[in-house]
């Protein structure tokens, strides 16, 4: 399971970086989203994935004796997902506005020359 997740993270990061390096704005956005998801799975992986080992301590023990599923990474991911949801939805609206204004999906068309500044 862990090996599978590691490979998935690698694929998500690689695809994300590839998309970000493209000139299309939509691909840029997709790349950012893939990178964000890769990061979320990375955090999930680092929290000792085990089945059926809740982080509940025995009454007569002071510390955990056995490996347990760490709940904190899941809380972190939940926060990160909510944040990236907000950012992504903003980004989609922004790109739509840019497309409506400029009529192009190419990042190279986004350079208003200095002479046109106010």
């Amino acid at each position, binding site marked *: 399971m862990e090996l599978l997740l590691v490979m998935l993270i690698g694929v998500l990061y690689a695809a994300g970086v590839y998309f*970000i390096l493209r000139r299309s*704005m939509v691909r*840029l956005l997709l790349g*950012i989203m893939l*990178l*964000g998801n890769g*990061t979320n799975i*990375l*955090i999930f992986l*680092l*929290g000792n994935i085990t089945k059926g080992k809740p982080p509940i301590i025995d009454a007569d023990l002071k510390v955990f004796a056995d490996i347990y599923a*760490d709940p*904190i*990474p899941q809380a*972190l991911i939940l*926060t*990160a997902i909510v*944040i*990236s949801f*907000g*950012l992504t939805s*903003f*980004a989609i609206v*922004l*790109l739509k*506005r*840019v497309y409506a*204004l*400029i009529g192009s999906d190419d*990042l190279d068309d*986004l*350079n*208003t020359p*200095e002479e*046109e*500044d*106010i």
Partner: protein
Amino acid sequence: MIDNQIIATVLVHLFTALLQLAFWRKTVTQRILSIAGTLTGFLFAANLFTKVYTGSILTMNASNWEAPFGIVFVADMLSATMVLLTSIAALAVSIFSATGVGRARMLYGYFPIFHFLVMGLNGAFLTGDIFNLYVWFEVVIIASFVLLTLGGRKAQLEGAVKYMAMNILASTFFLTGVGLLYGITGSLNMADLALKIPEVENQSIVNLTAMFFLIGFGIKSAVFPLYFWLPSSYHTPPSAVAATFGGLLTKVGIYALFRVFTLVFTPDEFMKTLFIVMGILTILTGAFGAIIKNNIRRLFSYLIVCHIGFIIGGLGLYTKVALLGAVFYLIHDMIVKTNLFLIAGLIRQLRGTMNMEKLGGLYAHYPKISLLIAVVLFSLAGIPPLSGFWPKIYLIEAGFSANNYAFVLSVIIGSFITLYVIARLWSEVFWKNDPAEEIVTDSFKPLKPFKKMLLVLPIGILAATTLYTGLNAEIIIQVADRISTEMLDTTPYIQAVLGN
């Protein structure tokens, strides 16, 4: 020492923003609330600063969870200073915004978003938890996205795409670093991390994690290979927004670099060299970029980049004198850079353009305002008794004592080019004869005296702060000295957070 008042500045801005949302589309009320809010924030920040300056490091445990388990807020000297400077800059910007920002933007929530942004900045400076720092960063960037795009002009949206892409990317890198850090140490509290990091067996994975933080914060603070988004977006929004961004947003990245690379990771030789090389290249590229620009705000954007190099290089030298110089420069820079963009906004009000070729003769028309601006420009260039001069002495001295002549040379070149650029700006904008006497659009003269005062007063406040920083340098040096001592010896911070 536990003190629940340290998050007062965060709460003041939160409640100001919420109150303003209740007065949606009532711009006059929002303006008054904004100035009142930033003024209250300033008073709380000054109170916090005095408490930390005369006493010791203050902490607050959120929901009374004990330190390594819950989220902790810490006000040490560095945090308190940053909060104080932020509140001064925010006060100036909110006064300037009252007339400097168009009514259309105010109708769509300029002021509430501005206060959410300042709230995020204060939170980022005060938190002692690394994941919480990430969350505050996100609060800051999402507010800054809205401020940057509010108005929806073509240039603004173009700048916003680059700004948005790079900042989300930076956050992703930062989050990856946080995840890895939690994976190796099992902790998120920065003081706890400082104790656990040296005990990690595999130090190379620690260094790898440090790189993620370096890239994440490096993008946000605009250091050499990662700064290109800054000059292509900071000239687009209204000047009040650009002032907030230029003075405060890149500096929160610098703050995070200072915090993480003095407390959590201790830089090794490779890291220090990397910081110095990045610093030198940031100074040179920023300075040379500034030379060729004709638009005032594009020029100032490159100067931001240039001067960030001084601070990063000072961090790279990592001696007491170098850190002192870097912190002093940070204190000077936050106030001056905010002021520069406000000045650009004022020049736009005076002449309707920010292109140096179309400007001229401002000194003949507005001698008093020009003299006020001259003080700020001189202090930026580092003319001796003013505030830009002192930190450079410390940086150069630190460079000499570390035998790092490349850094000394680049500081000198950077200062020299800054001086040249400022001299060119002065002669083009203020001394040159007015090139087009008849088509000048002066939207300043028809304003009522009260509104004129609202535009000039914030520049005066910040110029007075700059003068104070320069003329009372021994007090600022004491503050910077304490900050650099706390950076090199983190035991008091750790003890304050974790107890003994």
